[in-house]
């Protein structure tokens, strides 16, 4: 039983059809991870007990595998009566896992803003909230754009993990074909090649945006 090229090519349209799901999962997970990560970082900065708790939680997330998080959420949430679809659990899992990394991105982005900016805001009488919205946030966004783009690529590369929850993204589709036809090598190889092309294209696009941003803000 060799590698059947004709069969491999016949699986391309089905697997390619799942590219939308893959990209959607990556995008929503990235937004979710950024939201949770930003919340973590704000809590960490506020100090006190919740600051310590969040600090531990971030360390905990960064020391545990994404696969274990997906199983954890998939099996533990229903135990507490929270019934979500596999797709939602998958997105939630990726969001939680990458929030630990994005919190560090926000931290670095905020730390890179000179302290004088905050002091100047206070000197001209801006409120704390106004300082965050008008002074800190715009500068932070520029600082985090590049690492955020890199993490989007990382999240994209983690989307095939959702196949273990039977979410029909690219790898999931390949497994569907495999279990129907009992031929694993061809659909999986096709998924591998298509995914590699997608990941390379997205990371090139991210790099291009990055250089443009850096070019426009270099002082």
């Amino acid at each position, binding site marked *: 039983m060799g*590698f059947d090229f004709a069969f491999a090519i016949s699986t391309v349209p089905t697997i390619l059809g799942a590219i939308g799901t893959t990209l959607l999962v990556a995008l929503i997970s990235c937004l979710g991870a950024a939201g949770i990560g930003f919340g973590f970082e704000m809590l960490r900065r506020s100090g006190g007990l919740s600051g310590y708790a969040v600090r531990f939680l971030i360390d905990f997330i960064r*020391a545990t595998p994404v696969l*274990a998080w997906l199983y954890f959420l998939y099996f533990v949430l229903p135990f507490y009566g929270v019934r979500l679809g596999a797709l939602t659990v998958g997105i939630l899992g990726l969001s939680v896992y990458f929030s630990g990394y994005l919190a560090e991105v926000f931290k670095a982005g905020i730390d890179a803003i000179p302290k004088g900016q905050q002091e100047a805001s206070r000197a001209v009488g801006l409120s704390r909230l106004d300082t965050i919205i008008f002074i800190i946030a715009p500068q932070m966004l520029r600082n985090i754009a590049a690492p955020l783009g890199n993490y989007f690529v990382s999240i994209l590369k983690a989307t095939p993990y959702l196949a273990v929850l039977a979410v029909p993204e690219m790898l999931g589709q390949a497994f569907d074909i495999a279990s129907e036809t009992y031929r694993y090598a061809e659909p999986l190889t096709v998924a*591998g090649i298509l995914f590699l092309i997608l990941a390379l294209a997205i990371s090139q696009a991210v790099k291009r945006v990055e250089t443009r941003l850096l070019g426009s803000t270099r002082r």
Partner: protein
Amino acid sequence: MSIFDIWLGILQGLDVTAKVTGYGLLFAVPFALIFGVAQYLAKGAVLFAVTAIIEFWRSSAVIILLFVFYYALPVVGLMLSAITVSAMVLGLNIGGYASQAVRAGLQSLDRGQKEAGQALGLSRSMILLLVELPQALVAMSPTFVNHFIQLVKATALVSLVTLTDMTFRAKEIAQIEYNPVGIYTSLLLAYFVVCYPIAILGRWLEARISSGRELARGL
């Protein structure tokens, strides 16, 4: 089954987790060193080939790579054990990331280092071995520690290709005992116990290296 039994059951998988990590390093370390140095030194067609190989291992999703090699290699007549395939795929994937740290470490060295080596009459390979690599590897050691943690966490994937690691044990226990909270919390904790001390080591290294840098700047 008490929580203690669950812990013992999961820890039975620690030897496979450790084995895959160890064998993975046998692939990751040589790959990172050889390809990182090659990307730093090579030009033209060789540079293109080296970059293509690195990008293949680094830009693919590791979970898809694992399945592709696990299912496709036997079809083309290459029979490898699950543990060899896992160690190779996980190792070369992390090695691909680490090669970028090796290259970046070499590129960030001051040009004077190489020129001083030339002035002393050292050959190019001696400059690399005695002057450039030691400094680059020390400077990048916190990054390597992070990549090592990523490798340990990635070994959770081998549970999907029938290897009885910690994640596999947890799923096994989950089949005979309905206690998702206890089992999957224990699984996360098991990885945390393994990875967190390594993360602390990484932070310690980082602090030492940056204090060394400040000292050097002050001189």
